[in-house]
């Protein structure tokens, strides 16, 4: 079995729940004889420097961390390049491994990743598991829209994505 784990956009703190989850999961999967290879795809500056296991291959997703706007990474909001780059990186891996009948994608949230995964699912029919950590985009948007700190053009757009892929937010 080959597993492709995808984590979200630039996470810069080493202690983040998603990173810890992936780290522990990768170490565990390494010990399973049934797992041949673990791909970890992320734009995180921290994840890329780490080899979690011998079977783990790190893939760089999208542009690197570009700073925050009220806690939200800029790359998530403004950089369409992130999505295009991420899509082609994942596509390459899936094409290279699609002959494997046991290839699984495990994505760690959220709406933005979902819009990359949707065409991948339609094109290559890869099984997908999504892990919803914490609050997701809906929570972020609620917080930021209350403070009116997100550009009004982007708020409904991201809200729409969240509603589309994770119909009930928090």
């Amino acid at each position, binding site marked *: *079995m080959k*597993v492709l784990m995808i984590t979200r956009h630039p996470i*810069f*703190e*080493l*202690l*983040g*729940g998603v990173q*810890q*989850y992936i780290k*522990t*999961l990768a170490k*565990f*999967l390494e010990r*399973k004889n049934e797992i041949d290879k673990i791909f970890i795809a992320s734009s995180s500056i921290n994840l890329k420097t780490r080899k979690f296991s011998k079977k783990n291959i790190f893939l760089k997703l999208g542009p690197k961390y570009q700073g*925050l706007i*009220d*806690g939200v990474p800029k790359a998530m909001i403004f950089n369409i390049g992130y999505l295009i780059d991420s899509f082609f990186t994942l596509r390459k891996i899936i094409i290279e491994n699609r002959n494997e*009948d*046991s290839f*699984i994608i*495990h*994505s760690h949230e959220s709406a933005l990743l*979902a819009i990359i*995964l*949707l065409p991948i*699912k339609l094109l290559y029919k890869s*099984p*997908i*598991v*999504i*892990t*919803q*950590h*914490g*609050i997701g985009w809906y*929570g972020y948007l609620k*917080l930021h829209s209350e403070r009116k700190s997100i550009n009004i053009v982007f708020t409904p757009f991201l809200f729409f994505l969240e509603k589309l*892929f*994770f*119909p*009930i*937010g*928090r």
Partner: protein
Amino acid sequence: MADKIIVVDETLKEVFYKDFKTKIEVIYNPIDYRIFRPSEYLRRYVRKQLGVKDDEFLLLYIGRLSEEKGIKEIMEAFDQIVKKVRKIKLLIVGNGPLLRMIEIYKKKNKGRIIHIKQSDEPERFYNASDALIFFSKFEERSRVVPEALGCGNIVLSTPTNEILRIKSQHPDFPIFLYEPNIESIVNVILFAYKRFKLKNKRRRQFIIKEQDAREVLEKVFYIYKTILE
């Protein structure tokens, strides 16, 4: 689109259940209790590194420095505490948009606030500390709570659904609740400080079995297998 949706706590399941039903599975964040366990060696070594004396109470905040994590309220409360109690220090481990605010408080309360931006080994700081303070505006079952309990810390927390769930399942665990306001934070810290002065030196590990990495990750693997079959 997804074949399976994993949520990391029961509260999230309740939120998503209506739409996803059978697709949804609760799998808690895995905690490796071989790493998160009490260590007297780490306690002594890290406290020495940080300049914290044996008889000083070390309160720990670990996480992103952002508004939703309640760090503003914690800093304000600690500002009041230092005027009341001498032998208490606050260790902050994390980075984020409110970094500047931390620096201001650090200057103001010289020597009482220690800040570390990043760390690969959070178990060092849990072991050095006496109590973890967790404040959540959105998060339900943060991993810092079981990690801190694993290292034998007292946990001070806002009453999220998941914290209440842990508390009811493990009534003997040292989890103390406070309301999300400054006065309540001050009171709970003072309570923990008094308890610290009385407590035994030897620390006990508090394990939330359903978050034990070995059990949790077997479940993830099982999900992979069933989907592929």
